[in-house]
């Protein structure tokens, strides 16, 4: 089963910020791979990660720099910023309140 991209889109920042926060700088492909490895359910249209990354970059939550991979290729790696860590807290709180609310309805309906 594949989750439709648009429902996942809203939670992408949370996923990306969490990944970067816990695992340090990653390039776009690594981010996708990690998400896939951790959950088959969250299979997204891979390319749509990038506009999302760029939006977060513009917002100042993540910062990109050019790195060289072990195969000697140049890639853009993203790292979380201080503002990104603050945002991570906000996103987590938002996610929790939404899931709590949904769970509450499911339990008591």
């Amino acid at each position: 089963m594949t989750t439709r991209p648009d429902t996942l889109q809203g939670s992408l920042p949370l996923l990306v910020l969490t990944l970067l926060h816990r695992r340090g700088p990653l390039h776009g492909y690594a981010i996708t791979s990690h998400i896939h490895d951790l959950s088959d359910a969250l299979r997204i249209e891979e390319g749509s990660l990038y506009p999302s990354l760029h939006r977060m970059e513009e917002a100042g939550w993540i910062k990109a720099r050019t790195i060289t991979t072990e195969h000697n290729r140049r890639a853009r790696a993203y790292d979380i910023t201080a503002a990104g860590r603050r945002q991570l807290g906000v996103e987590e709180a938002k996610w929790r309140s939404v899931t709590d609310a949904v769970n509450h309805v499911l339990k008591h309906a």
Partner: protein
Amino acid sequence: MSWLSRIANAFRSSDVDRGLDDEMAFHIESRIADLVAAGMTRDAAEALARRQFGNRLRLREESRDIKLLPWLDSLVRDVRLGARMLRKNGPVTAAAILSLSLALGACMAAFSLVDALILRPLPVHQPERLIYLTFPGTNPDLPENDVFSDPAFVRLRDAGRGRVDLFAMAYPSRPRVTFDVASGERETVRTQFVTGNAFELLGVGPTVGRLLTMQDDERQAAHPVAVLSHAFWRQRFGGDPGIVGRWFVMHGTKDDRQFQIVGVTEARFSGVEPGYSTDVWIPYAMQDPSTFGNSGYRALRVIGRLNENVAAEQVHGVLQAAFTNFRHEDVANNFGPDPPADRVANFINTPLRVRSAATGVSPLRARFQRPLWVLSAIAALMLLIAGSNVANLFLARIAARQDEMSLRLSLGAGRGRLIQQLLIESGIVAGAACLVGVVLAMVAAPAVVSLLKSTDDPVLLDLRIDWPFVAFIGGMTVLCSALLGLAPALRASNVEPMTALKANRGRTSARARTMRPFVVIQVAFSLIVLFVGGLLVKSFVRLSSVSPGFATSDVLLVSWEAVQHVERNQQHAALLQVLDRLRDLPGVAAVSAAEGNVLGRFGYNIPVPGTARETIEANLSRVTPGFFETMKIPLVAGRTFTRGDFELERPTVVIVNQSFAKRYFGDQPAVGRRFDLRWGGPRAPHEVVGVVADARYDLHKPPVPTIYVLIPLNGHDTLHVRVTGEATTIAARLREEVRATTPLLRVTSITSQSSMLDRTVVRERLLALLAGFFALVGLVLTAVGVYGTLSYTVVQRTREIGIRIALGARAVAAVRSVLADTTGATLIGVAFGLAGGLYASRFVTTLLFEAAPLDVSSLALPLGVLLLAALVAAAAPAWRAARVDPVIALRNE
């Protein structure tokens, strides 16, 4: 927002796009690699990776909008806000743009002149490898001489072989030619004799036909061919390719010769002399036969192309050796018997210089290079004055907008954004000023060029808008924006959000202090410009008030040409007829003729009697009877020339001027004395029959000793006509009369003596006019700057002054406290200005005539004017400070 995206695409999309593409490509390739490693075939892996990734184009668009729009959006908003802020301050903005554009226009005009005359490389192949040869001149006006004789050129060419390929281009001449034989109409073309290899060595090709080659330069007088310049071809023949093969007639003093047009040069090339273009090139072999092998006839520029891997210094040695050898052998042709040894040694050991011809060879440049740099420097100073002035205005405005700034900071605007905002505002002002400046420059630069030229001496500087010019304008705009915006921007970014909101009138004196450096700059530079400009104006006024010693405004100079070639005495008789006819015309006071139209062009060395080795230099002026009466040169002793003297086969009577009499005969009376003179024939004793007052045609120099002799009329002379009525109507009449008198002659041009004289002071007039104008503008700008700073200070300190006065301080003390800052700045500026002005004056001393920089009046006048202007500017603010009413001032709080 789609139009914004489009602008973004135009500006910086390519970098962004490349980054996005790389990133996506990396992703897809990594995915393929992983899939292949997991055992999938490459084709299947590629297809799957692409499918999973999604629509790359759409994703790229999306990312690009995310990256570019905020940047563009803020830019557009800042520009809008900036424009609104500037409009709100309409008059201030207009004044800023006006003063800046004036200075910028001056800078651009100066640059386009400097570019055209000094900087621009010749439009030929590898111009940096071109050289030309010079040697020190004896004339102080032309410190470098670049004319060589035919035998000298041949020796140098042979010596340089293998290292440098030398060719010769004669000094341009302006013969009369007839292109349309049917109408017989004559016109003047700028013609140049060139060796056959000139075009090949320059690397210039033809547009149509062919250019000259060595085959056109083999035997004397055997190659009647000609090449036209592209510009002349377009202008005279409308670019008709059928012109190749046509013949034309060139009229000489001795005969008429036919030439066939063989080709037209390529468009970019119009000669090697910036300022003068050549119309027609003719093979060297077609020169007057008497010039070949004649070391006394010097009319050639020697130019060359260095061979690969040869430096200019490497050819100097061989060329110098050849030149010295040549001069050694040439002594006999240049000195009489038993010449003074030191002069001979000087002659032989004349150093030869190898100069770069990358930007062409130009006597115009030699004359105007320094004045142009001086004007450029003045224009640059103007820009600094105007820039400081506008920066001051901006600073004052920033102070007024302190509240806005601190509010924006408090609301979370980044300092970067505030600085960007202010830089954009100054950018708008600088950009607008640049546009106006370009328009001013496009009017001003040709106007300056037209000051340089006269009817028979056209100056054609190519003032085109090319890349260097555009780059210069761009650089200027950026420089101005930075100059104007930076100080205010830094100032604004120092605003503390909280304190500024709380106590917005807290740090007033600090604010005024930031304006002080600009007052210093303005005063200092304005004083420099005033001082230098004053010197140049004074020099010109002195020069203009020099009396030439002869009539100027009412003397017309009539040049003529022979319509057909006849015997010399026939021509002489025809001219005599013309002179007699003109003399009787109503409105004509006197008539005569003289060689050329300038007295004393011809240097002559005369041995002093008794001491054969000592010589004095005198000018030989060839005239007809009636010359002194026509020119109103007073007779001091003896008599003037008579018709009887003139009719002798070889007149041996001379008239000398007072300088000559004094120099040669001392206190003894000169009339009746004799000395040996050789001109146009063997040496013979000549008798002085009269002494006339000194006259000078070059106002820069003291009168030179002059000998007047009688000439047979022969084609090199100009008719001098002194008129009593309206010169223009009589000029037309003169043409008619000459035509009616003889079919042999035709009038070619009529000018006035005064315009000829004006030409000798062109450089001084140009400098005085422009420097004087700038000095004035600089003064006004500085006064405005001082006024602005003081007004601002008074407004800022009204409360403080009010308190002081309320506490019993006298108005004078209030005024003094307001003025103290600016007065200090002015005095510092004056000190810098005086030092700078004295330093700068070193560069103009060679351009000055009887005006010394260290003169009391030269120093005191600009200083006085500047201080007076500052005083006037300070008066109104000081008055306002003195009139501060403590009650009102404190109530405002």
